Protein backbone atom coordinates (compact mmCIF):
# COMPACT_ATOMS: atom_id res chain seq x y z
CA UNK A 1 0.00 0.00 0.00
CA UNK A 2 2.79 2.34 0.88
CA UNK A 3 4.27 2.08 -2.57
CA UNK A 4 1.01 2.91 -4.23
CA UNK A 5 0.46 5.80 -1.90
CA UNK A 6 3.89 7.16 -2.55
CA UNK A 7 3.35 6.79 -6.29
CA UNK A 8 0.04 8.62 -6.13
CA UNK A 9 1.48 11.37 -3.97
CA UNK A 10 4.49 11.73 -6.21
CA UNK A 11 2.36 11.95 -9.29
CA UNK A 12 0.00 14.39 -7.69
CA UNK A 13 2.88 16.51 -6.56
CA UNK A 14 4.39 16.50 -10.03
CA UNK A 15 1.04 17.33 -11.56
CA UNK A 16 0.66 20.25 -9.17
CA UNK A 17 4.10 21.63 -9.89
CA UNK A 18 3.82 21.30 -13.62
CA UNK A 19 0.29 22.63 -13.59
CA UNK A 20 1.48 25.74 -11.81
CA UNK A 21 4.33 26.05 -14.25
CA UNK A 22 1.99 25.79 -17.19
CA UNK A 23 -0.43 28.28 -15.72
CA UNK A 24 2.32 30.75 -15.06
CA UNK A 25 3.73 30.39 -18.56
CA UNK A 26 0.36 30.90 -20.18
CA UNK A 27 -0.11 34.15 -18.32
CA UNK A 28 3.43 35.43 -18.51
CA UNK A 29 4.18 34.76 -22.15
CA UNK A 30 0.90 35.72 -23.68
CA UNK A 31 1.36 37.32 -27.08
CA UNK A 32 -0.53 40.55 -27.55
CA UNK A 33 -1.87 41.47 -30.94
CA UNK A 34 -0.76 39.86 -34.10
CA UNK A 35 2.62 40.96 -35.39
CA UNK A 36 2.13 38.68 -38.37
CA UNK A 37 -0.47 40.98 -39.88
CA UNK A 38 2.03 43.79 -40.20
CA UNK A 39 4.51 41.53 -41.89
CA UNK A 40 1.92 40.26 -44.33
CA UNK A 41 0.72 43.77 -44.97
CA UNK A 42 4.28 44.73 -45.74
CA UNK A 43 4.44 42.14 -48.49
CA UNK A 44 1.14 43.00 -50.13
CA UNK A 45 1.46 45.55 -52.91
CA UNK A 46 -0.81 48.14 -51.30
CA UNK A 47 -2.79 48.79 -54.41
CA UNK A 48 -5.92 48.64 -52.24
CA UNK A 49 -7.73 47.26 -55.24
CA UNK A 50 -10.05 44.88 -53.43
CA UNK A 51 -9.58 42.12 -55.97
CA UNK A 52 -8.90 39.73 -53.12
CA UNK A 53 -12.41 40.16 -51.85
CA UNK A 54 -11.41 42.34 -48.94
CA UNK A 55 -11.69 46.09 -48.70
CA UNK A 56 -8.01 46.95 -48.87
CA UNK A 57 -4.71 45.28 -48.30
CA UNK A 58 -4.73 45.29 -44.54
CA UNK A 59 -8.03 43.47 -44.19
CA UNK A 60 -6.67 40.84 -46.53
CA UNK A 61 -3.51 40.64 -44.45
CA UNK A 62 -5.67 40.05 -41.41
CA UNK A 63 -7.63 37.42 -43.28
CA UNK A 64 -4.43 35.66 -44.32
CA UNK A 65 -3.19 35.63 -40.77
CA UNK A 66 -6.41 33.91 -39.89
CA UNK A 67 -5.91 31.30 -42.51
CA UNK A 68 -7.25 32.63 -45.77
CA UNK A 69 -5.58 31.58 -49.00
CA UNK A 70 -2.49 33.49 -50.02
CA UNK A 71 -3.17 33.49 -53.73
CA UNK A 72 -5.83 36.12 -54.04
CA UNK A 73 -3.71 39.10 -54.92
CA UNK A 74 -3.53 39.55 -58.70
CA UNK A 75 -1.62 42.85 -58.60
CA UNK A 76 1.12 41.26 -56.52
CA UNK A 77 1.46 38.39 -58.91
CA UNK A 78 3.15 35.11 -58.24
CA UNK A 79 6.08 36.79 -56.54
CA UNK A 80 3.83 38.06 -53.77
CA UNK A 81 2.35 34.61 -53.35
CA UNK A 82 5.84 33.24 -53.03
CA UNK A 83 6.89 35.87 -50.55
CA UNK A 84 3.81 35.14 -48.48
CA UNK A 85 4.44 31.41 -48.71
CA UNK A 86 7.95 32.06 -47.53
CA UNK A 87 6.78 34.16 -44.61
CA UNK A 88 4.05 31.82 -43.52
CA UNK A 89 6.03 28.69 -44.29
CA UNK A 90 3.33 27.22 -46.43
CA UNK A 91 3.40 25.93 -49.95
CA UNK A 92 3.25 28.51 -52.72
CA UNK A 93 0.15 27.95 -54.81
CA UNK A 94 -0.67 29.42 -58.18
CA UNK A 95 -2.65 32.62 -58.34
CA UNK A 96 -6.36 32.19 -58.12
CA UNK A 97 -8.37 32.40 -61.26
CA UNK A 98 -5.43 31.78 -63.54
CA UNK A 99 -4.39 35.39 -63.72
CA UNK A 100 -1.19 36.38 -65.49
CA UNK A 101 1.74 35.53 -63.32
CA UNK A 102 3.69 38.77 -63.31
CA UNK A 103 1.24 41.58 -63.85
CA UNK A 104 2.38 44.62 -65.77
CA UNK A 105 2.44 47.71 -63.61
CA UNK A 106 -0.12 50.17 -64.81
CA UNK A 107 -1.37 53.62 -64.02
CA UNK A 108 -4.72 55.14 -64.70
CA UNK A 109 -4.92 57.83 -67.32
CA UNK A 110 -7.93 60.05 -67.87
CA UNK A 111 -8.66 61.10 -71.43
CA UNK A 112 -9.21 64.62 -70.37
CA UNK A 113 -11.31 65.95 -73.17
CA UNK A 114 -13.83 63.22 -72.55
CA UNK A 115 -13.99 63.75 -68.81
CA UNK A 116 -17.26 65.29 -67.72
CA UNK A 117 -16.15 66.07 -64.22
CA UNK A 118 -18.48 63.74 -62.39
CA UNK A 119 -16.02 63.14 -59.49
CA UNK A 120 -16.98 59.47 -59.38
CA UNK A 121 -13.44 58.34 -59.96
CA UNK A 122 -12.24 60.67 -57.23
CA UNK A 123 -14.48 58.97 -54.77
CA UNK A 124 -13.40 55.58 -56.01
CA UNK A 125 -9.70 56.24 -55.70
CA UNK A 126 -8.37 54.59 -52.55
CA UNK A 127 -5.25 56.71 -52.37
CA UNK A 128 -6.59 60.12 -53.39
CA UNK A 129 -4.55 60.08 -56.55
CA UNK A 130 -7.15 61.79 -58.72
CA UNK A 131 -7.51 65.53 -58.83
CA UNK A 132 -10.44 67.50 -59.98
CA UNK A 133 -13.62 69.16 -58.88
CA UNK A 134 -17.19 68.81 -59.93
CA UNK A 135 -17.62 69.77 -63.56
CA UNK A 136 -13.91 70.26 -63.87
CA UNK A 137 -11.75 67.98 -65.85
CA UNK A 138 -9.99 65.42 -63.62
CA UNK A 139 -6.49 64.17 -63.80
CA UNK A 140 -4.50 61.35 -62.25
CA UNK A 141 -1.40 62.10 -60.25
CA UNK A 142 0.71 59.46 -61.86
CA UNK A 143 3.19 59.12 -59.06
CA UNK A 144 0.44 58.38 -56.58
CA UNK A 145 -1.56 55.97 -58.68
CA UNK A 146 -1.27 52.37 -57.56
CA UNK A 147 -2.84 50.99 -60.70
CA UNK A 148 -5.73 49.40 -58.85
CA UNK A 149 -8.18 50.26 -61.66
CA UNK A 150 -10.95 50.93 -59.16
CA UNK A 151 -11.65 54.19 -60.93
CA UNK A 152 -12.25 52.59 -64.30
CA UNK A 153 -15.56 51.01 -63.61
CA UNK A 154 -17.34 53.97 -61.97
CA UNK A 155 -16.50 56.28 -64.87
CA UNK A 156 -19.77 56.91 -66.66
CA UNK A 157 -18.15 57.87 -69.93
CA UNK A 158 -15.34 55.32 -69.95
CA UNK A 159 -12.65 57.89 -70.24
CA UNK A 160 -10.15 56.18 -67.94
CA UNK A 161 -7.53 53.91 -69.42
CA UNK A 162 -5.10 51.73 -67.56
CA UNK A 163 -1.82 52.29 -69.33
CA UNK A 164 1.28 50.26 -68.61
CA UNK A 165 4.09 52.29 -67.11
CA UNK A 166 6.54 53.02 -69.85
CA UNK A 167 10.16 52.08 -69.52
CA UNK A 168 12.55 54.96 -69.75
CA UNK A 169 16.31 55.02 -69.96
CA UNK A 170 16.36 55.44 -66.20
CA UNK A 171 14.00 52.62 -65.39
CA UNK A 172 15.27 50.22 -68.01
CA UNK A 173 16.93 47.17 -66.59
CA UNK A 174 18.59 44.00 -67.65
CA UNK A 175 16.61 40.83 -67.87
CA UNK A 176 17.61 37.83 -65.89
CA UNK A 177 20.19 35.88 -67.85
CA UNK A 178 18.82 32.71 -69.28
CA UNK A 179 19.89 29.50 -67.58
CA UNK A 180 22.24 27.33 -69.56
CA UNK A 181 19.85 24.60 -70.54
CA UNK A 182 17.50 27.03 -72.24
CA UNK A 183 20.28 28.60 -74.17
CA UNK A 184 21.25 25.49 -75.98
CA UNK A 185 18.45 25.65 -78.45
CA UNK A 186 19.15 29.24 -79.35
CA UNK A 187 22.88 28.94 -79.37
CA UNK A 188 23.24 28.86 -83.09
CA UNK A 189 25.32 31.28 -84.97
CA UNK A 190 23.46 34.43 -85.80
CA UNK A 191 20.29 33.32 -84.16
CA UNK A 192 20.81 35.11 -80.92
CA UNK A 193 18.04 37.56 -80.88
CA UNK A 194 18.01 41.03 -79.49
CA UNK A 195 17.97 41.20 -75.76
CA UNK A 196 19.18 37.66 -75.38
CA UNK A 197 21.77 38.06 -72.75
CA UNK A 198 24.47 35.70 -73.81
Amino acid at each position, binding site marked *: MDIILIAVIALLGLALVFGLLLGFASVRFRVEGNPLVDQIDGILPQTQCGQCGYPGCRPYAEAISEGDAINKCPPGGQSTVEALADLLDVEAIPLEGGVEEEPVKKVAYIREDECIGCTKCIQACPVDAILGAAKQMHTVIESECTGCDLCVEPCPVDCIDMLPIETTLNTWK*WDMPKPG*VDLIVTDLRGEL*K*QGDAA
Partner: protein
Amino acid sequence: MALIRTSSPHLHKASSTSDVMRLVVMATLPGLAAMTFFFGWGTLINVVWACLLAVGFEATIIKIRKRPLGFYLKDYSAVVTALLLGLALPPFVPWWVTLVGVFVAIVVAKHLYGGLGQNPFNPAMVAYALLLVSFPVQMTSWTAPFVLNGEGDSWNILGFVDTFKLIFGSLDSAIVDTYTGATPLDAMRHRGGLTTEEVWSSVPVLADGIGAWHAVSAAYFMGGVFLIYRKVFTIHTPAAMLITLAVTSTLFYLVDPYNYADPFFHLTAGATMLGAFFIATDPVTSATSNKGKVVFGIGIGLLIYIIRGWGGYPDAVAFAVLLMNLAAPFIDQYTQPRSYGHAKAKRGLKGEV
Protein backbone atom coordinates in the same frame (compact mmCIF):
# COMPACT_ATOMS: atom_id res chain seq x y z
CA MET B 1 24.42 40.59 -90.44
CA ALA B 2 22.18 42.03 -87.83
CA LEU B 3 24.09 43.36 -84.90
CA ILE B 4 23.34 41.73 -81.60
CA ARG B 5 22.79 43.41 -78.31
CA THR B 6 24.41 41.61 -75.42
CA SER B 7 25.69 42.37 -72.01
CA SER B 8 29.37 42.77 -71.29
CA PRO B 9 31.91 41.25 -70.98
CA HIS B 10 32.29 40.30 -74.58
CA LEU B 11 35.51 38.40 -74.09
CA HIS B 12 35.86 35.08 -72.45
CA LYS B 13 38.81 33.18 -71.22
CA ALA B 14 39.31 30.00 -73.15
CA SER B 15 38.81 27.54 -70.36
CA SER B 16 35.79 25.49 -69.56
CA THR B 17 34.53 23.03 -67.03
CA SER B 18 35.51 20.16 -69.24
CA ASP B 19 39.04 21.56 -69.50
CA VAL B 20 39.24 21.64 -65.74
CA MET B 21 37.95 18.11 -65.49
CA ARG B 22 40.35 16.89 -68.15
CA LEU B 23 43.22 18.40 -66.20
CA VAL B 24 42.10 16.54 -63.11
CA VAL B 25 41.95 13.30 -65.07
CA MET B 26 45.45 13.92 -66.37
CA ALA B 27 46.73 14.67 -62.92
CA THR B 28 45.53 11.33 -61.61
CA LEU B 29 47.46 9.41 -64.23
CA PRO B 30 50.75 9.18 -62.29
CA GLY B 31 48.84 7.85 -59.30
CA LEU B 32 47.02 5.34 -61.47
CA ALA B 33 50.27 4.24 -63.02
CA ALA B 34 51.88 3.83 -59.62
CA MET B 35 48.91 1.86 -58.33
CA THR B 36 49.03 -0.42 -61.33
CA PHE B 37 52.74 -0.82 -61.03
CA PHE B 38 52.71 -1.72 -57.38
CA PHE B 39 49.36 -3.36 -56.88
CA GLY B 40 48.56 -4.94 -60.19
CA TRP B 41 46.03 -4.53 -62.93
CA GLY B 42 43.10 -4.43 -60.59
CA THR B 43 43.05 -0.68 -60.16
CA LEU B 44 43.22 -0.04 -63.87
CA ILE B 45 40.41 -2.48 -64.56
CA ASN B 46 38.38 -0.97 -61.76
CA VAL B 47 38.88 2.50 -63.09
CA VAL B 48 37.89 1.61 -66.60
CA TRP B 49 34.91 -0.39 -65.42
CA ALA B 50 33.81 2.46 -63.13
CA CYS B 51 34.17 4.99 -65.92
CA LEU B 52 32.05 2.91 -68.27
CA LEU B 53 29.40 2.50 -65.62
CA ALA B 54 29.51 6.17 -64.71
CA VAL B 55 29.01 7.33 -68.27
CA GLY B 56 26.20 4.83 -68.66
CA PHE B 57 24.43 5.90 -65.50
CA GLU B 58 25.00 9.55 -66.23
CA ALA B 59 23.56 9.22 -69.71
CA THR B 60 20.54 7.32 -68.44
CA ILE B 61 19.76 9.73 -65.70
CA ILE B 62 20.26 12.77 -67.90
CA LYS B 63 17.82 11.24 -70.33
CA ILE B 64 15.35 10.61 -67.51
CA ARG B 65 15.77 14.18 -66.33
CA LYS B 66 15.12 15.35 -69.88
CA ARG B 67 18.33 17.30 -70.21
CA PRO B 68 20.46 17.65 -73.32
CA LEU B 69 22.64 14.58 -73.27
CA GLY B 70 25.67 15.64 -75.23
CA PHE B 71 26.00 18.91 -73.40
CA TYR B 72 26.13 17.38 -69.96
CA LEU B 73 28.17 14.32 -70.83
CA LYS B 74 30.87 16.53 -72.23
CA ASP B 75 31.70 18.03 -68.89
CA TYR B 76 33.65 14.91 -67.81
CA SER B 77 32.43 15.20 -64.27
CA ALA B 78 31.08 11.66 -64.21
CA VAL B 79 34.40 10.33 -65.43
CA VAL B 80 36.27 12.19 -62.73
CA THR B 81 33.96 10.83 -60.06
CA ALA B 82 34.33 7.28 -61.35
CA LEU B 83 38.09 7.70 -61.61
CA LEU B 84 38.41 8.80 -58.02
CA LEU B 85 36.17 6.02 -56.79
CA GLY B 86 38.09 3.47 -58.85
CA LEU B 87 41.37 4.67 -57.38
CA ALA B 88 40.03 4.50 -53.87
CA LEU B 89 38.61 0.98 -54.12
CA PRO B 90 40.77 -2.04 -53.32
CA PRO B 91 42.24 -3.40 -56.55
CA PHE B 92 40.52 -6.77 -56.46
CA VAL B 93 37.11 -5.63 -55.42
CA PRO B 94 34.35 -7.60 -57.20
CA TRP B 95 32.63 -5.97 -60.16
CA TRP B 96 29.28 -5.62 -58.47
CA VAL B 97 30.78 -3.63 -55.64
CA THR B 98 32.00 -1.10 -58.16
CA LEU B 99 28.61 -1.18 -59.82
CA VAL B 100 26.82 -0.40 -56.60
CA GLY B 101 29.38 2.27 -55.79
CA VAL B 102 29.11 4.03 -59.13
CA PHE B 103 25.34 3.84 -59.00
CA VAL B 104 25.31 5.44 -55.59
CA ALA B 105 27.85 8.05 -56.62
CA ILE B 106 26.23 9.12 -59.88
CA VAL B 107 22.55 8.52 -59.27
CA VAL B 108 22.07 8.97 -55.56
CA ALA B 109 24.82 11.29 -54.44
CA LYS B 110 24.89 13.47 -57.53
CA HIS B 111 21.75 13.49 -59.59
CA LEU B 112 19.23 12.98 -56.84
CA TYR B 113 20.62 16.17 -55.37
CA GLY B 114 20.23 18.03 -58.64
CA GLY B 115 23.26 17.13 -60.69
CA LEU B 116 26.65 18.71 -61.09
CA GLY B 117 27.22 21.63 -58.80
CA GLN B 118 24.26 20.86 -56.56
CA ASN B 119 25.49 17.89 -54.60
CA PRO B 120 26.44 18.66 -51.02
CA PHE B 121 28.64 15.58 -50.65
CA ASN B 122 31.50 14.38 -52.70
CA PRO B 123 29.86 11.62 -54.79
CA ALA B 124 32.92 9.40 -54.90
CA MET B 125 33.31 9.56 -51.16
CA VAL B 126 29.63 8.93 -50.53
CA ALA B 127 29.91 5.81 -52.63
CA TYR B 128 33.13 4.77 -50.95
CA ALA B 129 31.71 5.23 -47.47
CA LEU B 130 28.57 3.36 -48.40
CA LEU B 131 30.54 0.47 -49.82
CA LEU B 132 32.80 0.43 -46.81
CA VAL B 133 29.82 0.24 -44.51
CA SER B 134 27.91 -2.27 -46.57
CA PHE B 135 30.60 -4.65 -47.74
CA PRO B 136 33.30 -4.58 -45.11
CA VAL B 137 34.85 -7.83 -46.24
CA GLN B 138 35.31 -6.92 -49.86
CA MET B 139 36.33 -3.40 -49.04
CA THR B 140 39.06 -4.23 -46.61
CA SER B 141 40.90 -6.94 -48.50
CA TRP B 142 43.70 -5.01 -50.07
CA THR B 143 46.24 -6.35 -52.44
CA ALA B 144 49.74 -6.55 -51.14
CA PRO B 145 52.29 -4.61 -53.16
CA PHE B 146 54.32 -6.68 -55.55
CA VAL B 147 57.42 -6.38 -53.44
CA LEU B 148 55.86 -8.70 -50.94
CA ASN B 149 54.79 -11.30 -53.47
CA GLY B 150 57.05 -14.01 -54.63
CA GLU B 151 60.75 -13.78 -54.43
CA GLY B 152 62.91 -10.77 -54.35
CA ASP B 153 62.29 -7.62 -56.24
CA SER B 154 60.80 -9.13 -59.37
CA TRP B 155 57.61 -7.58 -60.62
CA ASN B 156 55.28 -10.30 -59.50
CA ILE B 157 51.71 -9.29 -59.77
CA LEU B 158 48.61 -11.16 -60.81
CA GLY B 159 48.32 -11.23 -64.57
CA PHE B 160 45.90 -9.02 -66.40
CA VAL B 161 43.58 -11.81 -67.53
CA ASP B 162 43.55 -13.39 -64.11
CA THR B 163 42.80 -10.09 -62.48
CA PHE B 164 40.00 -9.54 -64.93
CA LYS B 165 38.57 -12.95 -64.19
CA LEU B 166 38.99 -12.39 -60.49
CA ILE B 167 37.13 -9.15 -60.56
CA PHE B 168 34.35 -10.45 -62.70
CA GLY B 169 33.89 -13.46 -60.50
CA SER B 170 35.05 -16.42 -62.55
CA LEU B 171 38.23 -17.13 -60.67
CA ASP B 172 38.48 -18.98 -57.45
CA SER B 173 38.94 -16.51 -54.73
CA ALA B 174 41.52 -18.74 -53.10
CA ILE B 175 44.13 -17.34 -55.45
CA VAL B 176 43.29 -13.96 -54.19
CA ASP B 177 44.50 -14.75 -50.77
CA THR B 178 48.04 -15.11 -51.95
CA TYR B 179 47.92 -11.61 -53.29
CA THR B 180 46.09 -9.87 -50.53
CA GLY B 181 47.26 -8.48 -47.27
CA ALA B 182 46.61 -5.78 -44.79
CA THR B 183 47.28 -2.18 -45.60
CA PRO B 184 49.80 -0.32 -43.47
CA LEU B 185 46.97 1.49 -41.71
CA ASP B 186 45.27 -1.82 -41.02
CA ALA B 187 48.45 -3.15 -39.61
CA MET B 188 48.94 -0.13 -37.43
CA ARG B 189 45.37 -0.26 -36.23
CA HIS B 190 45.14 -3.96 -35.46
CA ARG B 191 48.47 -4.45 -33.87
CA GLY B 192 47.37 -5.80 -30.55
CA GLY B 193 49.66 -4.83 -27.77
CA LEU B 194 52.69 -4.07 -29.88
CA THR B 195 54.45 -0.77 -29.80
CA THR B 196 54.87 1.18 -32.96
CA GLU B 197 58.41 0.12 -33.36
CA GLU B 198 57.54 -3.50 -32.95
CA VAL B 199 54.81 -3.24 -35.50
CA TRP B 200 57.16 -1.65 -37.95
CA SER B 201 59.60 -4.46 -37.69
CA SER B 202 57.19 -7.35 -37.42
CA VAL B 203 54.54 -6.67 -40.03
CA PRO B 204 55.83 -7.21 -43.55
CA VAL B 205 53.63 -4.62 -45.15
CA LEU B 206 55.25 -2.04 -42.94
CA ALA B 207 58.71 -3.45 -42.88
CA ASP B 208 59.07 -4.06 -46.60
CA GLY B 209 55.93 -2.95 -48.39
CA ILE B 210 55.60 0.57 -47.17
CA GLY B 211 57.72 1.81 -50.03
CA ALA B 212 54.93 1.04 -52.47
CA TRP B 213 52.55 3.22 -50.52
CA HIS B 214 55.11 5.99 -50.38
CA ALA B 215 55.53 5.80 -54.08
CA VAL B 216 51.81 5.95 -54.77
CA SER B 217 51.46 8.93 -52.44
CA ALA B 218 54.33 10.64 -54.18
CA ALA B 219 52.60 10.10 -57.50
CA TYR B 220 49.40 11.68 -56.21
CA PHE B 221 51.39 14.51 -54.74
CA MET B 222 52.94 15.20 -58.12
CA GLY B 223 49.53 15.24 -59.74
CA GLY B 224 48.30 17.64 -57.09
CA VAL B 225 51.20 20.00 -57.57
CA PHE B 226 50.50 19.96 -61.28
CA LEU B 227 46.89 20.98 -60.66
CA ILE B 228 47.92 23.78 -58.32
CA TYR B 229 50.37 24.95 -60.94
CA ARG B 230 47.59 24.97 -63.51
CA LYS B 231 45.42 26.91 -61.07
CA VAL B 232 42.69 24.30 -61.07
CA PHE B 233 42.46 24.83 -57.36
CA THR B 234 44.35 26.81 -54.79
CA ILE B 235 46.85 25.49 -52.37
CA HIS B 236 44.70 26.32 -49.36
CA THR B 237 42.77 23.12 -48.79
CA PRO B 238 45.53 20.54 -49.36
CA ALA B 239 48.10 22.58 -47.50
CA ALA B 240 45.84 23.15 -44.54
CA MET B 241 44.84 19.54 -44.43
CA LEU B 242 48.34 18.09 -44.74
CA ILE B 243 49.86 20.55 -42.32
CA THR B 244 47.17 19.91 -39.76
CA LEU B 245 47.61 16.19 -40.09
CA ALA B 246 51.34 16.52 -39.86
CA VAL B 247 51.26 18.83 -36.88
CA THR B 248 48.74 16.75 -34.99
CA SER B 249 50.55 13.50 -35.60
CA THR B 250 53.89 15.11 -34.74
CA LEU B 251 52.48 16.30 -31.44
CA PHE B 252 51.22 12.87 -30.53
CA TYR B 253 54.34 11.20 -31.85
CA LEU B 254 56.56 13.43 -29.77
CA VAL B 255 54.53 12.83 -26.66
CA ASP B 256 54.30 9.10 -27.03
CA PRO B 257 56.28 7.59 -29.92
CA TYR B 258 55.52 4.09 -28.74
CA ASN B 259 51.84 4.29 -29.30
CA TYR B 260 51.51 6.82 -32.14
CA ALA B 261 52.84 6.55 -35.65
CA ASP B 262 55.20 9.17 -37.02
CA PRO B 263 53.85 12.03 -39.13
CA PHE B 264 55.43 10.85 -42.32
CA PHE B 265 53.54 7.62 -42.01
CA HIS B 266 50.27 9.49 -41.66
CA LEU B 267 51.01 11.65 -44.65
CA THR B 268 51.97 8.87 -46.95
CA ALA B 269 49.82 5.97 -45.86
CA GLY B 270 46.34 5.26 -47.04
CA ALA B 271 44.44 7.78 -49.06
CA THR B 272 45.90 10.90 -47.45
CA MET B 273 47.48 12.30 -50.61
CA LEU B 274 44.61 11.24 -52.84
CA GLY B 275 42.23 12.88 -50.41
CA ALA B 276 44.24 16.04 -49.99
CA PHE B 277 44.63 16.80 -53.68
CA PHE B 278 41.73 15.12 -55.40
CA ILE B 279 38.93 14.63 -52.91
CA ALA B 280 39.03 17.53 -50.51
CA THR B 281 39.63 19.98 -53.35
CA ASP B 282 36.45 19.03 -55.12
CA PRO B 283 35.14 22.57 -55.47
CA VAL B 284 31.48 21.65 -55.48
CA THR B 285 31.50 20.27 -51.99
CA SER B 286 34.17 22.30 -50.28
CA ALA B 287 34.15 25.74 -48.77
CA THR B 288 34.31 28.72 -51.06
CA SER B 289 36.57 31.44 -49.81
CA ASN B 290 40.26 31.00 -49.20
CA LYS B 291 39.74 31.38 -45.52
CA GLY B 292 36.94 28.88 -45.67
CA LYS B 293 39.13 26.45 -47.56
CA VAL B 294 41.76 26.65 -44.86
CA VAL B 295 39.17 25.92 -42.18
CA PHE B 296 37.83 23.11 -44.31
CA GLY B 297 41.29 21.61 -44.75
CA ILE B 298 42.11 21.88 -41.07
CA GLY B 299 38.87 20.13 -40.24
CA ILE B 300 39.62 17.27 -42.56
CA GLY B 301 43.15 16.90 -41.23
CA LEU B 302 41.97 16.76 -37.64
CA LEU B 303 39.14 14.38 -38.41
CA ILE B 304 41.44 12.04 -40.28
CA TYR B 305 43.76 11.82 -37.35
CA ILE B 306 40.97 11.37 -34.85
CA ILE B 307 39.20 8.66 -36.82
CA ARG B 308 42.43 6.88 -37.62
CA GLY B 309 43.47 6.98 -34.02
CA TRP B 310 40.27 6.26 -32.23
CA GLY B 311 37.60 5.44 -34.77
CA GLY B 312 36.25 2.16 -36.01
CA TYR B 313 37.90 2.19 -39.41
CA PRO B 314 41.57 2.14 -40.27
CA ASP B 315 41.44 4.90 -42.88
CA ALA B 316 39.34 7.96 -42.48
CA VAL B 317 39.70 10.21 -45.50
CA ALA B 318 36.23 9.45 -46.84
CA PHE B 319 34.50 10.05 -43.53
CA ALA B 320 36.50 13.14 -42.75
CA VAL B 321 35.73 14.64 -46.13
CA LEU B 322 32.04 13.81 -45.87
CA LEU B 323 31.79 15.32 -42.42
CA MET B 324 33.47 18.49 -43.57
CA ASN B 325 31.27 18.57 -46.67
CA LEU B 326 28.42 18.74 -44.25
CA ALA B 327 30.03 21.70 -42.53
CA ALA B 328 31.01 23.53 -45.72
CA PRO B 329 27.94 25.76 -46.05
CA PHE B 330 28.30 26.70 -42.43
CA ILE B 331 31.96 27.49 -42.90
CA ASP B 332 31.03 29.58 -45.90
CA GLN B 333 28.74 31.70 -43.82
CA TYR B 334 31.43 32.56 -41.36
CA THR B 335 34.38 32.96 -43.66
CA GLN B 336 33.19 35.57 -46.09
CA PRO B 337 36.11 37.56 -47.31
CA ARG B 338 36.36 41.19 -46.33
CA SER B 339 35.20 43.06 -49.38
CA TYR B 340 36.93 46.10 -50.76
CA GLY B 341 36.02 49.17 -48.80
CA HIS B 342 34.66 47.33 -45.79
CA ALA B 343 36.25 47.51 -42.40
CA LYS B 344 35.57 43.88 -41.67
CA ALA B 345 33.98 40.87 -43.19
CA LYS B 346 30.33 40.17 -42.74
CA ARG B 347 29.34 37.11 -40.82
CA GLY B 348 26.46 34.78 -41.05
CA LEU B 349 23.64 34.85 -43.47
CA LYS B 350 21.20 37.66 -43.55
CA GLY B 351 17.81 37.39 -45.08
CA GLU B 352 17.01 33.96 -43.77
CA VAL B 353 13.46 33.80 -42.62
